[in-house]
């Protein structure tokens, strides 16, 4: 709300500079958004919160300034109320006003005036212009001047163009239409309120007037309107029509139902003052629903109880009365009635806020809430995700955070065809809730590759969405070298086993052993992955996720450079390590007897998987075989075609005694013979 300082000063004496006033009011609930000089004057732009429509006016802001500075406020009501009363008792031309929907329009004040249309005087036009309102003609300018000054919207009809002439406030008829002042035809519905004459709609109540009855050059007699419309109704109408006006903005937040006669008196006064005309009859006040301000009990202890600071009783009363509240002292508190413009005040806390804000939040002490019991436990996912994050970071992955909504074409290959989509996305780029976090990390890989990074390792921990609900997952992507370049060599590209190792390390954090496998039904592990370089990850029988090399169609879609090999994985953390699962551990005693190690080298078919070799050994070996590790695998010179040389390290250990060489040797021989029999292995 932009206000001219000189205009404000008509209602309150405050000597301070505009800057100082702005600073003070910012601490009283009216944040200063802007300040510009306007000749010798100043224009202050205050951010008025949605609960304070009364401050969308010069007098509303002047009242706040008066309270803040402890200065008297020259309330317009004090001067205008007698004027309105006198005008209501006057005689002359009258106007029949019928309110058919008193719920939606609880007060309608009208008056007839004879006018000579012309430009407004410069002082009025200048004030309107400074506050952002374009001057039109003296009559319209008077309504806008009143709007800015006391905050109540008004309207003027050309009396000659009202059929009757009469004012009927009624719901629109089905299919009824009106051309509004902005020249646009509007089709109305029965949930909208119109101001009609005897025949047809001449304005949309509280939103905008009609072009038919517009006050123009030839207008000689007008009907002034100052009414009160129900906020929800105006808001709904304004939304439905896509039509927001200065009037609708104030009515939908809540106008002062006691203000219409005052606004009318002020308008008639201004009309005469600027020589634009004069009232041709009494002020007619149709007021079917009388406003009864509620009495609010404010217990004295409630103030310190909420604020945590003491405010003297005199100060409480001064603040409330200066703001326009009626205050009477009761037993241990105050009975308070809110003025008509304070539609935001309903209960004691609202009054406490008034007291606190004008006493000054700057006087609040700094204390801490007392503790009555130990805190409840935190979300176990936070600790769990933190452990996953540590492994990912320690494995060289940097953390990404992506938008949770993605383009449908990116989501499609990852989803089940039943994605969670948005009704009103910002754009197609943000239309679908991600069914996987992998598209986000691939996009980030693409971004970094296009910006000159050769090696990119990224992970994200976040929520993926399905129609069945939300799920916390880890996504990983890796392209480029397995380890940083180094003068000592060892340069090689990241491969399947790098990614598999990271996924297994994450699982090991939670003492979970994963199976990296192919689907039992012979299907491909995932349609985004290159067959033969892809696997699913299982915990027991449950699929936890997948890993492998992304197909080029998928990386191309995210503008990853062609020929880049990108490895990706996704792991459902809630399956891998259900939040809140027991983390109890028991320490194992250290072995008391030494282990014996035997290395064996075997020649086996290259199609024989390591898992089968390991499984075969495990199924027949003695209990003393505690580990089997593949430590070399070689194909090439010296190895027959179709064969592979596999070196295994067998570790034997007993918790009860030192094993003898002979028994280890015989166990090893048994293993080798078993492999020869079952897998056609030949010892080298």
């Amino acid at each position, binding site marked *: 709300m932009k206000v001219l300082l000189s205009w404000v000063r008509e209602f309150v004496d405050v000597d301070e500079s505009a800057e100082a006033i702005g600073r003070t009011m910012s601490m009283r609930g009216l944040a200063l958004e802007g300040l510009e000089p306007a000749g010798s004057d100043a224009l202050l732009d205050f951010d008025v919160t949605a*609960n304070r429509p009364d401050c969308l006016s010069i007098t509303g802001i002047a009242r706040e300034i008066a309270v803040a500075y402890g200065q008297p406020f020259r309330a317009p009501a004090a001067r205008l109320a007698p004027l309105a009363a006198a005008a209501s008792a006057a005689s002359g031309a009258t106007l029949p006003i019928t309110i058919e929907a008193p719920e939606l329009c609880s007060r309608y004040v009208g008056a007839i005036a004879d006018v000579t249309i012309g430009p407004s005087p410069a002082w009025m036009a200048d004030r309107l212009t400074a506050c952002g309102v374009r001057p039109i003609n003296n009559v319209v300018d008077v309504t806008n001047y009143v709007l800015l000054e006391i905050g109540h919207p008004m309207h003027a009809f050309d009396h000659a163009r009202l059929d009757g002439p009469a004012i009927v406030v009624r719901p629109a008829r089905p299919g009824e239409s009106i051309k509004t002042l902005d020249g646009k035809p509007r089709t109305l519905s029965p949930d909208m309120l119109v101001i009609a004459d005897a025949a047809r709609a001449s304005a949309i109540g509280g939103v905008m007037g009609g072009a038919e009855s517009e006050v123009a050059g030839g207008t000689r007699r007008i009907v002034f309107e100052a009414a009160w419309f129900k906020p929800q109704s105006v808001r709904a109408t304004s939304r439905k029509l896509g039509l927001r006006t200065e009037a609708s903005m104030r009515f939908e937040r809540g106008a002062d139902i006691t203000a219409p006669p005052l606004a009318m008196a002020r308008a008639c006064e201004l009309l005469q003052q600027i020589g634009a005309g004069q009232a041709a009859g009494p002020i007619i006040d149709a007021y079917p629903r009388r406003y009864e301000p509620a009495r609010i009990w404010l217990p004295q202890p409630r103030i310190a109880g909420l604020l945590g600071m003491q405010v003297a009783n005199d100060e409480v009363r001064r603040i409330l009365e200066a703001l326009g509240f009626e205050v009477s002292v009761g037993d241990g508190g105050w009975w308070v009635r809110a003025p008509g413009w304070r539609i935001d005040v309903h209960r004691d*806390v609202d009054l406490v806020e008034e007291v606190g804000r004008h006493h000054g939040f700057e006087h609040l002490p700094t204390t801490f809430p*007392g503790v009555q019991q130990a805190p409840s436990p935190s*979300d176990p996912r936070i600790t769990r995700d933190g452990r996953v994050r540590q492994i990912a970071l320690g494995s060289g992955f940097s953390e*990404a955070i992506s938008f949770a909504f993605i383009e449908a074409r990116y989501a499609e290959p990852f989803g089940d065809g039943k994605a969670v989509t*948005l009704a*009103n996305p910002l754009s197609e780029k943000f239309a679908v809730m991600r069914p996987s976090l992998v598209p986000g990390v691939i996009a980030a890989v693409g971004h970094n590759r296009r910006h000159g990074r050769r090696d990119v390792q990224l992970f994200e921990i976040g929520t993926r969405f399905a129609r069945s609900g939300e799920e916390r997952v880890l996504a990983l992507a890796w392209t480029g070298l397995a380890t940083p370049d180094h003068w000592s060599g060892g340069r090689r590209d990241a491969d399947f086993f790098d990614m598999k190792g990271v996924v297994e390390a994450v699982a090991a954090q939670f003492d979970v052993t994963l199976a990296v496998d192919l689907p039992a039904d012979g299907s491909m592990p995932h349609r985004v992955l290159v067959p033969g370089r892809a696997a699913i990850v299982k915990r027991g029988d449950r699929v936890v996720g997948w890993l492998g090399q992304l197909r080029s169609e998928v990386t191309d879609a995210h503008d990853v450079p062609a020929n880049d090999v990108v490895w990706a994985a996704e792991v459902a953390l809630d399956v891998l390590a259900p939040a809140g699962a027991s983390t109890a551990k028991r320490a194992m005693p250290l072995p008391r007897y030494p282990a014996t190690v035997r290395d064996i080298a075997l020649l086996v078919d290259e199609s024989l998987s390591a898992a089968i070799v390991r499984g075969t050994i495990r199924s027949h070996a003695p209990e003393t075989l505690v580990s089997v590790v593949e430590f070399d695998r070689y194909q090439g010179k010296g190895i027959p075609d179709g064969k592979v040389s596999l070196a295994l390290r067998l570790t034997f250990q007993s918790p009860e005694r030192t094993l003898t060489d002979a028994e280890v040797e015989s166990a090893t021989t048994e293993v080798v013979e078993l492999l020869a029999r079952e897998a056609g292995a030949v010892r080298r």
Partner: protein
Amino acid sequence: MTTTTIDPAIGPDRARALFDEELSSARTDAAVQALRNRWIARQGSWVSAFMERLAQATPEEKKQLGRGANELKKHVEAALAGREQELAATRRPAGAVDITLPGRAPRLGYRHPLSLIRQEVGEIFSRLGYQVLEGPEIEDDYHNFEALNMPTEHPARDMQDTLYLAEPLMPASYEPPTRGRAPLAPQPLTLLRTHTSAMQIREMERQEPPVRLVAIGPVYRRDNLDLTHTPMFHQVEGLVVGRGVTLADLKGTLTSMAASLFGSGQEVRFRPSFFPYTEPSAEVDIRCIRCNGDGCAMCKRTGWLEILGSGMVHPAVFEFVGYDPDEVTGFAFGMGIERVALLKWGVEDIRLFYENDLRFLEQFGR
């Protein structure tokens, strides 16, 4: 190394100066050996050349030249021995490594700056005895708006432009409310939560007072991408409910948080404001961390930076969850994680947080 032709005619004194010059650049064992050969070898060296010349000299010359050549030889021998010793002292022991080559750095990833702030805020409040929660990102209208005192058609809903689902989902699990005004039937999930305040309601429905929690996570609004807005961002919500909780307690708590986040002595101010779910409400500013209050472009010359919205929980909210507003009071606050990160690190474009550019991510630590 500069070498001149061996010319005994110049005499031992000038030859000695020449040697000193050549010695100055001899920095390896090989160079020292070369000098030895060139200056004092039996044949073809400077000294041997002087000796040959001596043979043809007159007795008078012999005496002078002989002494000069001898002194030159001694000088060269001593100087070379000295240099050899110097070199030996700096020679690398057997098996020595070139310690100036680059180390083999473990490849460690970098944390996302928002993740760092999230953790920092979580730790600050854990230390103050709060439980730290996350919650669902898809919400129903009741928990996101209605129970926060924002009924349908409330103008305050305009403050947050909402993203809605094309088709509502039904919650996977449902616990009927035991008190308060929550609907008795499971509510369809229709929207992306616009604030973490929805978690206030869920937790108060679940827990009896006292309550002391922060809820952290992503929230969504229909805001176009620009320097200061993204349609998804992160919030931390704080809620304390109990007997005798006051606005002054909120001020103490947030002052302490600001000091932890931005440095001790960080000045904080409370400005009255409006939120439908708090009364009284306050916006909280910190003293501008760039200009320290003198006024700059960052703080729009006000000397202050807004960091969060807060207030005393509105009694209507307590009524929605079935708490007695005459028995308990509470405070709540909501702060944007991105906003903190922008201010703390002087990031000028919020979109950088969602580009995942490693050149950006690697600036904040692990």
